[in-house]
């Protein structure tokens, strides 16, 4: 298969290695080295995950960060910000405080040499609008993650699109999370529920309803009517939280799309994602002229860690072998 000409690049969010980082079996440097080994050139990092002492980022970390980039031939691409509106127990952050939180994260992005910042899905549109001038001055784009269960027709996303189109700020855009294209229910999730004691007939009902793209609105209720317990309810809720939409829904928003979070739950032995049809997603990105990074986001560890060894490196390697194939690269692994 030969892919048409494109400028899509491969990257890795170090989020993918959260299991190993949590257990201190991989350091930040190890994560970067592993990503580079299978040809990923763009590095995305969640500062709140891997930079102790935030919001302070000391010179020593910054020096190390750039020396790792040089050593492994990688480029800093993106950071992911959070907006802790509930930072205080007794009150919501004010708009000014929320904007200040964004400014702080833009400063961190500049320190780390990235030009893309993931704005988390709970960011109110007015915060994006208020933070845009600061981002513009800093040369950073704030990209709202379009994360399940949201999609491009959802009112929350439409309000954000209204701000982006009305202001026309070059600093604002979108970061689609491929978890919005979950075509069939991730089996690592349903199998975990079974291990946790879910009733097989209810798991079957939930998975079948999802896979048939049926009506999931009342699943939690039906599972309750059928004698389900907390594990069954949890799985039913998951079925309302994953969504399937046509990947082509990204096309009309392409000018706003600056980065892709290539979420995945399970790369199988034959190097395909069990739930998310990347073979139909990548062509849409090519067709739309996307020229940013496909940034791996492995999120399967939490569903298998109770029973199986987690090998995030192997999972991301498989995803990049798939990307290399879908992007028409001649070699997948040691490019």
């Amino acid at each position, binding site marked *: 298969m030969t892919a048409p000409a494109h400028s899509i690049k491969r990257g890795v969010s170090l989020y993918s290695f959260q299991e190993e*980082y*949590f257990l201190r079996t991989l350091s930040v440097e190890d994560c970067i080295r592993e990503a580079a080994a299978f040809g990923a050139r763009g590095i995305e990092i*969640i500062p*709140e995950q891997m930079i*102790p002492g*935030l919001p302070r980022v000391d010179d020593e970390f910054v020096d190390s960060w750039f020396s790792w980039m040089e050593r492994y031939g990688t480029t800093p691409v993106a950071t992911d910000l*959070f907006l802790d509106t509930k930072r205080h*127990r007794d009150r919501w952050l004010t708009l000014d405080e929320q904007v200040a939180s964004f400014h702080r994260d833009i400063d961190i992005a500049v320190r780390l040499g990235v030009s893309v910042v993931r704005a988390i899905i709970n960011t109110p549109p007015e915060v994006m609008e208020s933070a845009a001038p600061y981002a513009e001055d800093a040369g950073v784009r704030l990209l709202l993650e379009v994360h399940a269960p949201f999609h491009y027709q959802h009112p929350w996303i439409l309000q954000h699109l209204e701000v982006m189109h009305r202001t026309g700020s070059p600093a604002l855009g979108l970061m689609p999370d491929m978890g919005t294209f979950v075509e069939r229910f991730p089996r690592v999730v349903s199998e975990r529920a079974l291990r946790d004691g879910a009733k097989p007939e209810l798991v079957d009902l939930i998975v079948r309803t999802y896979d048939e793209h049926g009506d999931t609105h009342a699943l939690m209720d039906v599972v309750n009517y059928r004698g389900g317990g907390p594990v069954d309810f949890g799985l039913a809720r998951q079925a309302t939280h994953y969504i399937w939409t046509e990947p082509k829904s990204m096309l009309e928003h392409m000018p706003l799309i600056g980065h892709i979070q290539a979420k995945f739950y399970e790369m199988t032995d034959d190097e395909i994602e069990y739930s998310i049809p990347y073979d139909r997603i990548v062509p849409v990105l090519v067709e739309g002229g996307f020229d940013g990074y496909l940034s791996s986001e492995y999120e399967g560890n*939490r569903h298998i860690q109770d029973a199986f060894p987690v090998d995030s490196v192997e999972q991301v390697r498989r995803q990049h072998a798939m990307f290399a194939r879908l992007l028409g690269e001649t070699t997948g692994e040691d490019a």
Partner: protein
Amino acid sequence: MFDQYIVCEEGFRPLDDGRTGGVVEVRMPYYRGLALSMVEAVDLVLDGRPVPPSRTTFTVHHNTYTFDQLPGTTDDRWEMGERAQLAFETDEPLAPGEHDVAVAVRLRISYMPVPGGGRDSKRLTLAA
């Protein structure tokens, strides 16, 4: 997520400051660090008996807090995967040998409508 890693297998030991009680090391069941103001509870049940939060303290990277102080602490963090020390007082000295240690962590995660966190229990051997 990460629930099974909350209670650390290592580091369960008696207090060494003359008081009766012990220390259990705990990790946060979440994929990033959080300011301590968003750590709503780290509840300990020892051998089936709840230990009141007023008899526990919480230490991250050598900074020790009471649970009354945590809600107001926005300038220090429990980092991802960091082993915090949950120290607790008991009426009697801890018996040598094995104990049932259960810990429930409750976190205030801004993008979630329900509390975050998780729970874990392990049977730990008290270090001599």
